[in-house]
């Protein structure tokens, strides 16, 4: 209990102190509030924006769709590569393409698909795809060989082997893949929304506020995009981990 209090209290104190200093600096005109609005101003400007939930909703929807599709694709191709030795070159090609930042695909898709949701989701799928592929492949390679041998002895079919042996064995890597693909796709989707969105989205909100010189909305957008990702990770991904890998004792809960 004491440890938990010690873990929670100091960050809150530090955070509040920093916010207070910032507020006071702004109120006493020591910094330019047109460029650096005070926390109060940021908060009220976020409250005033009526369509803020629409922005958040459409960003989240894009995130979920692209992670879902990218995850399934990455998983399937990883299984393919690991089952057929002749496909090994796909891994190298993908490790080469993995190092392309997601946003640099955006102009290509804007040109071939056009502005809007389709482009953003396409870029999101590409960014979600590579970490999944990489992690699942790595996990499949690390499986205890004896497990595979046993499954051959009891003559499991391909599907049975996959679901009964391989999937539970790589669960640790599956959750890491989920975490990574969420993190990367969130970053990329916000970035792509800045240049390719037409109506809604957090990235669009921030970039649109730049044209209106509305810096409090911009800071609010920065803050929101951090908070939302933080919530996704601590509410969804952490619980998935708790109910699978931590419960099965594959990883210590941190």
């Amino acid at each position, binding site marked *: 209990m004491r440890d938990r209090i*010690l*873990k929670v209290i*100091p*960050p809150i*104190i*530090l*955070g509040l102190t*920093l916010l207070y200093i910032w507020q006071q600096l702004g109120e006493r005109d020591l910094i330019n509030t047109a*460029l650096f609005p005070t926390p109060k101003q940021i908060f009220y400007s976020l409250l005033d924006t009526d369509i803020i939930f629409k922005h958040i909703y459409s960003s989240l929807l894009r995130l979920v769709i692209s992670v879902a599709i990218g995850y399934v694709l990455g998983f399937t191709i990883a299984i393919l590569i690991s089952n057929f030795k002749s496909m*090994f*070159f796909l891994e*190298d*090609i993908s*490790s*080469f*393409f993995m*190092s*392309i*930042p*997601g*946003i*640099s*695909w*955006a*102009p*290509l898709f*804007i*040109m071939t698909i056009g502005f809007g949701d389709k482009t953003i989701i396409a870029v999101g799928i590409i960014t979600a795809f590579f970490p999944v592929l990489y992690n699942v492949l790595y996990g499949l390679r690390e499986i205890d060989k004896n497990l595979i041998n046993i499954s051959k002895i009891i003559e499991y079919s391909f599907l049975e082997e996959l679901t009964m042996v391989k999937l539970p064995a790589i669960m640790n890597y599956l959750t890491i893949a989920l975490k990574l693909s969420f*993190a990367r796709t*969130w*970053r990329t989707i*916000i*970035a792509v929304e*800045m*240049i390719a969105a037409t109506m809604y989205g*957090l*990235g669009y909100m*921030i*970039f649109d*506020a*730049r044209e209106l*010189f509305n*810096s409090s909305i*911009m*800071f609010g*957008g*920065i*803050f929101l*995009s*951090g*908070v939302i*990702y*933080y919530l996704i*990770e601590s509410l969804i991904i952490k619980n998935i981990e708790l109910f699978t890998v931590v419960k099965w004792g594959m990883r210590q809960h941190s």
Partner: protein
Amino acid sequence: MGNEAAFMKKQRVIVIAVLIIVFIIYSIYYNTYSPKILVHILKSLSRMLLGYIFAVIFGILISVLVGINKYIRMACNPIISFFMSIPTITWVPILLIITGITEKTIIIAVFLGSFFAIMYNTLDGMNNVDQNLIRMGKVLGYNNFQILYKIVIPASFVQILTGLKLGIAYSWRALVGAEMLGATQYGLGYLIFASRKFYDLNRMISTLLIIAFFGYLLNRLLIIIIEENTIVRWGLK
């Protein structure tokens, strides 16, 4: 088994070599502006290097300063991890307003991209140092500074290196994104964004390949060289 692994490794190298050759031929064939591409690449790399070096210096320095006291360290950890979960690109529009469309914007964006990752990992490493080592230092009569310098930093070096690695990856991403929004003349991100305006698909794809190549180079080869010379040699991995 070992033989097979070596064979696979050889095939790997061949695949990567073929990829690189194909991409060089492709980009030379389609880049009619060939000498200028070097300027773009150099400009991008120099921005990245500048931002990254600042991030490394400040990241390690500040986290060492903060890490002297246990409570301050614990207070900083969640705040840094919150800043880490902010997408770097969201800083760019506000930087464009504050500093204008200049080099500074891109360099600061690169800096912000890697700074928090480096700082988070360094602090994490300092938190996870074996307490017995620190007690031993106290027994030997070290003061706080000596404990930090002789025990904590070497013991958390693996984590610091992880931070540096992450920092390279993040700053490369931030660089391309920031160049798209904030560069005026040169830079790989600018090139790819500008070729959209001229509907120049070949130039765009060849730039994409160049970005992939340098990202690969930075992520893999540089890190492998650094890792082999430090932690692998010390037997930590």
